[in-house]
């Protein structure tokens, strides 16, 4: 039962619905069910928030260390340097998201220009 298994117009959409929509929204619905039973200031919510934050941070780390596409052709040192430099700029220059992003991009592009 692969994506190309049936030669009908609706099969790919059913594939996307079951393999994509159901497999993601089931977790979201479970989250609503559980989240609706937690009070705003409980310690459990601090734990859940910490879990979710660490998870998202892991996604970020993987995006930088194991990127896909053209960023994968750049050296790991350059990617780490750009991300770390951008984050430092964010921390030191008034905690503006845009400052961090621009600094990281400048470092990346400068690095590409120097080592091309």
């Amino acid at each position, binding site marked *: *039962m*692969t*994506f190309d298994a049936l030669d009908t117009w609706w099969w*790919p*959409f059913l*594939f*996307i619905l*079951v*393999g*994509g929509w159901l*497999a*993601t*929204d*089931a*977790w*979201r619905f*479970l*989250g*609503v069910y*559980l*989240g609706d039973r*937690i009070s*705003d*200031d409980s*310690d459990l919510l*601090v*734990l*859940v*928030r*910490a*879990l*979710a*934050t*660490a*998870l*998202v*941070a*892991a*996604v*970020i*780390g*993987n995006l*930088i260390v194991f*990127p896909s*596409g*053209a960023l994968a*052709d*750049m050296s790991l040192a350059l*990617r780490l340097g750009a*991300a770390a430099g*951008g*984050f430092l700029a964010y921390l030191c220059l008034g905690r503006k*998201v*845009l400052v*961090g*992003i621009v600094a990281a*991009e400048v470092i*990346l*592009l400068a690095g*590409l220009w120097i080592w091309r």
Partner: protein
Amino acid sequence: MLCASAMPADDASPIPDFSIRRLWYLRGVRAAFSVPGLILASAFIGFAGLAKEAGLTLVQTVFMVGMVWALPAKVVLVGAILSGTSLPAAAFAVALSSIRLAPMVVALVPEMRGPRTPRWVLYFLSHFVAVTSWVLAMERLRGIPRDVRTSYYAGLGSTLVLVNMVVVGVVYVLADSLPPVVSAALFLLTPMYFLTSLWGSARERAGHVAMAIGLVLGPLLHLVVPGFDLLGAGLIGGSIAFAFHLLSRRRAKR
């Protein structure tokens, strides 16, 4: 203290009427047209190329954006389609990659619900949860009156989904390839945005601890136990951060 989350005082205010809800919905719409929204759109430019290479049609690709929404889940699904995986195995892989959505929604729901919010509204709005709208919401919902937060998030979430369906459609039709320097710069936008805004949206110091550990553990576990990297990093990093939270509070009480 950082932990003090402000409860708005207007919990007992009258039920907001339609024009007030529409106003906050439109403010949510406007929040989607922001730096984070732009960055997300740039990530979807890359996804359109990936789906096209995998042989998906235009309609299938746009349909997938609307129905699945979370970008990592879509990348996994397209990967499964590319490698000729059967439907049960594909659904399992996508489900495994999306477990993080549950704790994210659990953390968001108490933030978003008002005193009279019906359940079905929360279930409906949860579909819009993915990293970008979650980070944006955790950052901004605090400053919005509690009884119109659902309206604001509806505007924000639905606009992000619709705009990116359009972006993916347009890029699918127009683009074949970008210069490598441009696409590398585009790829760096997403992690940099997440990195800085997640740091800024942390409620308590434990959030920063969780983030630092997750950043390191994610790639490390990816090498050691691929497939379990995100979940493992979340469980370990989250637990350590929570222990830190309990310890520092005990110390503060002393």
